[in-house]
């Protein structure tokens, strides 16, 4: 039973940006003193990446690590690589005080594509989305409407948004409403 069964059939909406539910991703929460040198070395060994700086995203061989808080990383990988990576992490961490847990099922991810992705996010999150103020490479934890969420820009016209799975339906519906054709502002394009 290793096949992931997604929470609902894949959601998709074509507005002035396209909102689509991303396929299942492997997600691992790592809590620990990853800023310390030995921990950093261990991470490098397991993931092939240096720990990301504050609010940044670091890319490794088969994984990406996002800074969530001074003692928490969220590691993204393919669904298939998740178990291997978890084992590798646990191995390099050894007896150090840390927590490695699989949270892949706990979240839902959405992809936004289109030239106005910044606007859709700015309708829901109290974050400065203007070019220059927010750029690819940063992950921002905030709220979208009435729920906690995080997002990052993959490029100037693609963004990812993640939230807890229980509110995935709410998230999809509000992203849909925010990208309704005719509601573009066109202030950054």
């Amino acid at each position, binding site marked *: 039973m290793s096949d992931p069964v997604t929470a609902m059939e894949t959601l998709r909406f074509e507005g002035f940006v396209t909102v689509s539910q991303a396929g299942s991703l492997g997600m691992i929460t790592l809590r620990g003193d990853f800023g310390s040198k030995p921990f950093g070395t261990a991470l490098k060994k397991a993931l092939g990446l240096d720990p990301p700086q*504050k*609010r940044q995203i670091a890319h490794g061989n088969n994984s990406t690590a996002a*800074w*969530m*808080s*001074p003692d*928490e990383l969220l590691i993204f990988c393919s669904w298939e690589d998740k178990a291997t990576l978890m084992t590798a992490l646990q191995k390099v961490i050894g007896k150090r005080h840390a927590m490695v847990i699989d949270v892949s099922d706990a979240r839902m991810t959405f992809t936004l594509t289109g030239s106005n992705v910044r606007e859709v996010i700015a309708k829901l999150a*109290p974050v400065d989305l203007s070019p220059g103020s927010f750029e690819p490479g940063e992950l*921002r*934890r*905030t*709220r979208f409407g009435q729920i*906690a969420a995080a997002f990052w820009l993959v490029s100037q016209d693609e963004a990812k948004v993640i939230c807890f799975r229980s509110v995935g339906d709410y998230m999809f519906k509000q992203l849909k409403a925010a990208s309704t054709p005719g509601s573009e502002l066109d202030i950054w394009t």
Partner: protein
Amino acid sequence: MLIFECPYCGVHAEESELSPGGEAHLKRFGPGSDDADFESYLFIRENPKGVHFERWRHSNGCGKWFHAARCTMTLEVFGTYVAQTFEPPQDLKEKITAKRPGWSWRDFS
């Protein structure tokens, strides 16, 4: 609506991304403490007109608790600092003194 800079993640978070946590630097009194100490720990709070120290949590964000010093009259924010301390940092206290000479708050001044 207030904005505080989270000292952990550096985000200038607005109030809707934060949760208030009441007065800062409370000293916990547990079993064995006398009634007066326990009462003050549970119930007695500062209500100053001016310099005040509070706790906030970056709940819609990095999840960390932090301290903030602000003026309750003008809402000027003197600074924010980490929660793992028993008193405000010296440089913050000096900054407040420069702006509000003669201030005092509980045992701090």
